[in-house]
């Protein structure tokens, strides 16, 4: 049983680490702020969840396990709130998202924000 838990824990940690790097690569590769935000939320949700779940499987005491769960809950609760606040502030300050134009090339939206 403990062998299985150990292997599962390593697998979760490695996948979590790869997801972490993926999120950062997306943060660098994507063309504008709003698309970068989606890359950032990969780090906030699954990467955090997997790494913390991997650590949970190796937790030496119940207290450590409880603290890991608390950290995960904090990150999952605050992540979308911060993301929403950022997106709203950016839109209200006049930052326009890139949207596909007629030719299919991404261009800054000229219509008022919030429109289709």
């Amino acid at each position: 049983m403990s062998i299985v838990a150990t292997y599962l824990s390593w697998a979760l940690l490695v996948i979590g680490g790869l997801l972490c790097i993926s999120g950062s690569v997306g943060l660098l590769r994507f063309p504008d702020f709003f698309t970068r935000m989606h890359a950032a939320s990969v780090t906030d949700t699954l990467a955090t969840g997997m790494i913390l779940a991997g650590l949970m499987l190796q937790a030496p005491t119940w207290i450590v396990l409880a603290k890991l769960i608390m950290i995960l809950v904090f990150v999952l609760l605050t992540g979308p709130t911060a993301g929403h606040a950022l997106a709203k502030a950016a839109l209200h300050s006049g930052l326009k998202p890139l949207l596909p134009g007629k030719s299919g090339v991404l261009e800054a939206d000229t219509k008022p924000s919030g429109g289709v």
Partner: protein
Amino acid sequence: MKIQTLSLGVLLVAFWALNSGLFKPLMYGLGTASVLLVLLISSRMKVIDSESQPLNLTKNIPGYYLWLLKELVISNIKVVGTIWRSNLHLQPALVTIKMDHLSEIGKVIYANSISLTPGTVTTEVTDNSITVHALDKSSIAEIESGEMEARVRKLDK
């Protein structure tokens, strides 16, 4: 004493006990004092109500979390696939979607669930519509199909 006060008290006691991990008389004393102080302050602030402690959701929320976890994994795989694609060729969209009336707490849960799933972010919520920025147009169609909305609506019942 309201049921919400009791649930907040239980939550605070659990939080204290799990954070300290030391079970000595001094710790019990300090813990009891600080839990009572927080309860007193929050009842004076009048924040102990069904909005901060939505106990009526307790029955249905575990099932919703499981479904949300499944959606999270699916959309994560999609976004990570997009990130590593050699030719990005993105089709982002900013769309206002109509929705039927939801309770206040329902709107918060709905908007936060959309923001939590990678690939979609809520930018604005009003009484009867929700504005979403999506990494790919297909995510917009998924939201418009209304499955998540129906599940949030079922939580209250």
